[in-house]
């Protein structure tokens, strides 16, 4: 088998790809970015950064500014902090504490006034006379009981009260700070979750898109494989075997202009003139009305079609030309169906499924190049009829009238 692709063209995998990574160094250098056009050191960093960020936003699929993400996060936070599930007062406190300064809590005055208890407190009064009398009677009172433990206990209690109030104030302050911190953390977490969710959505969309492309490519490959299977030699009773017809052509004297066209069927070499003629015919055929085309349609000659090289520019418009080429006519059906031997006479082609193609029309997937199927030719002696003993030249006798253009057999 001759490799039709050696050295001269890019591999089939690269066909149709126009990315910078597929361009050579020389081509890359020929296309300066817009910032540098005009020569010199014309680089606008801000413009480049805008482009970069624009591209990032495009790649993420959803072009939301930070403010928009914040708004979205705020709405999500509202839904998380559902007032039906959380005490409204707590929610308000959280919100207030998020904005309030922690200092305020520290400066908060305790509700209960500080109560000091000294040794004179129990004898105190707002009336001066009463104070005086009590002080006078104090020695007498001390004869009955000792008030000092009581005074000390109450004094300690007063101190404890003050300390407890300070502790409460400190705890409130810390709690306020913690509340603010928690609210901030929750807010940031929700923001990040929102950002991640958006990115996840964008990535999901991208995965779906890629999945569809992969699926389409797989179906396309299966279809092409099916066509390859059908390209196996099929002996149709009542018709001359195509390979037998075309086989003698290379060996025939190229006396007629049509003779070289048949050569690729055997040797894998497709001449440019033959391609041109086929394209012309395809053009004529595609110009027919659909009904007429259907009536006249017959299964293609896969052996010929598969050897015809499809160019990228042809593949781009492959939808219109689909029925005319062996590759595109391969229906996107499972392999088992496609590989089932189709009777050659069956005039109804499998309808082309447009659905996946519409999805990828703008960006055709890379064309998988099919190697020409190995056609086992029968022995020359058996295939070629005995040359008649007539005086006409043997080459003309070996080449039947239809041999140069096998497509013509279909119509």
């Amino acid at each position: 088998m001759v490799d039709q692709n050696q050295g001269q063209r890019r591999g089939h995998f690269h066909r149709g790809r126009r990315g910078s990574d597929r361009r050579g160094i020389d081509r890359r250098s020929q296309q300066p970015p817009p910032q540098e056009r005009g020569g010199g050191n014309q680089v606008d960093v801000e413009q480049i950064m805008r482009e970069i960020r624009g591209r990032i936003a495009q790649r993420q699929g959803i072009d939301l500014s930070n403010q928009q993400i914040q708004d979205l996060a705020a709405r999500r936070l509202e839904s998380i902090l559902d007032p039906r599930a959380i005490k409204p007062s707590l929610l308000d406190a959280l919100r207030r504490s998020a904005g309030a300064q922690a200092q305020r809590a520290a400066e908060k005055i305790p509700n209960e006034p500080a109560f000091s208890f000294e040794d004179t407190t129990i004898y105190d009064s707002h009336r001066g006379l009463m104070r005086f009398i009590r002080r006078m009677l104090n020695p007498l009172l001390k004869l009955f009981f000792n008030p000092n433990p009581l005074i000390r206990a109450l004094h300690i209690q007063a101190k404890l009260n003050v300390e407890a109030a300070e502790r409460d104030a400190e705890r409130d302050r810390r709690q306020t700070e913690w509340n603010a911190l928690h609210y901030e953390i929750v807010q940031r977490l929700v923001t990040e979750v929102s950002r991640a969710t958006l990115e996840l959505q964008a990535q999901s969309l991208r995965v779906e898109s890629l999945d569809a492309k992969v699926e389409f490519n797989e179906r396309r490959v299966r279809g092409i494989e099916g066509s390859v299977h059908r390209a196996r030699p099929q002996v149709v009773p009542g018709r001359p075997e195509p390979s037998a017809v075309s086989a003698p052509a290379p060996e025939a004297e190229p006396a007629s202009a049509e003779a070289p066209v048949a050569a690729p069927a055997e040797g894998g070499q497709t001449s440019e003139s033959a391609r041109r003629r086929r394209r012309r015919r395809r053009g004529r055929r595609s110009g027919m009305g659909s009904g007429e085309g259907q009536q006249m349609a017959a299964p293609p000659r896969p052996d010929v079609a598969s050897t015809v090289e499809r160019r990228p520019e042809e593949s781009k418009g492959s939808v219109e030309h689909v029925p005319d080429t062996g590759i595109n006519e391969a229906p996107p059906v499972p392999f088992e169906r496609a590989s089932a031997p189709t009777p050659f006479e069956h005039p109804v082609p499998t309808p082309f499924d447009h659905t996946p193609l519409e999805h990828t029309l703008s960006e055709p997937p890379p064309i998988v190049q099919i190697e020409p199927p190995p056609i086992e030719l029968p022995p020359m002696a058996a295939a070629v009829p005995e040359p008649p003993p007539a005086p006409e030249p043997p080459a003309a006798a070996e080449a039947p009238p239809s041999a140069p253009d096998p497509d013509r057999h279909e119509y």
Partner: protein
Amino acid sequence: MNVAIVVQRYGADISGGAELHARYIAERLSSRIQIRVLTTCARDHLTWRNEFPPGADEVNGIPIERFRVARERSLRDFGIRSRRVFTRYHSLQEELDWLQSEGPVSPDLLARLQRSAGEFDFVVLFSVRYHQAYYGARAIPGRAVLVPTAEREPALALAIFQPIFRGVRAIMYNSLEERAAIQGLAHNEDVPGVVVGVGSMIPAATDPQRARQVFSLSRPFVLYVGRVEENKGCAELFDYFQRYLESSRRDLDLVLIGTPAMPIPSHPRIRHLGFVSDQDKFDVLAAAAALVMPSYFESLSMVALEAWALGRPVLANGRCDVLQGQCIRSNAGLYYESAGDFAAALDRLLDDAGMADAMGRNGRQYFAQHYSWPVIERKYLDMFDRLAAASPGRPLEPLPGWFARRRPTVPAALDVLASLPSGPAREYQSASEVPA
């Protein structure tokens, strides 16, 4: 003309940004005017431990006087005080205590300054956030020329520095962004000031091939030069670079030059060369595809200027206003604010060789226009001449009284900082700042 340069540390082997800046300025100006450096005996900026002997010294022909530091810095105490003044309402006294804790406290150095009444025409004070610069400015405000080397950090917003910004004779700013922040803070537009920055000792020739061979740098690489620490954004750089490698199949290394102050991820594509000589550094820089500057706070990135001087593009942290502004004004670097930005900008720099070369040319031009030594020297000398001819400005505001200093009315520095103007400056605004 006699000029003294006062800086917290000084030495040929001290590579801190402000210290190197001071040394370069001293060495370059010494050919035009009489320069004397007054500094401390400290070598380590974290502890201010006295390591150099006090007294006269000389570094690269520059006469130096070293003074002992009274006490070492307690990082714990400094952390507590920093938290207090940065995050809460506080008093001026607390800020002064913070400055005392920051150091380096050298009473001998301050006494020497006060004694130098007729000795120096001007005293160039480096790094406003340090003790010697603040009290040096208070000691000799009429002759003080301040080089703030201020980054957009909370310390800049402390209230004690505002009178200094308003009361010194002149301010030599490092960048437009620094000037905008200081003027927004202190409203000192009437104080003579000029955006100068600093040049660098760029070698006449570099040998990138030698660097590739010596350090076995066979793959393309981006370079980081500086202390490897979180404050410089290195943790984020490692994260972004590893994420970039996961998403890209590019054959790219990240090469680090500098002393590590944090663990460096053990990744086959992250190479740490340690501390290298200047020649090696410039050779590696010339061999790099780009320089990465991940720092959040910079008043002026000398290594970015060196990269531009060598014609290499820079990929900078866009959250640092100064770096972003320099990238925009020079058109010689890209910047990032997220991992996506980082990857896309890096791809763009590496893919588009034409653009990277054009950025390199822009960088050379930017460096030559604004940061070459003749330009820097001329700006300093012009400023000294201008100050010598002009009368002293307004006097330095004195510190408030004992009670007023202790009144907790000063807002948190972080809040003040947040209210300052931010963002990169697009253009040089004054014609005098654009050298011919």
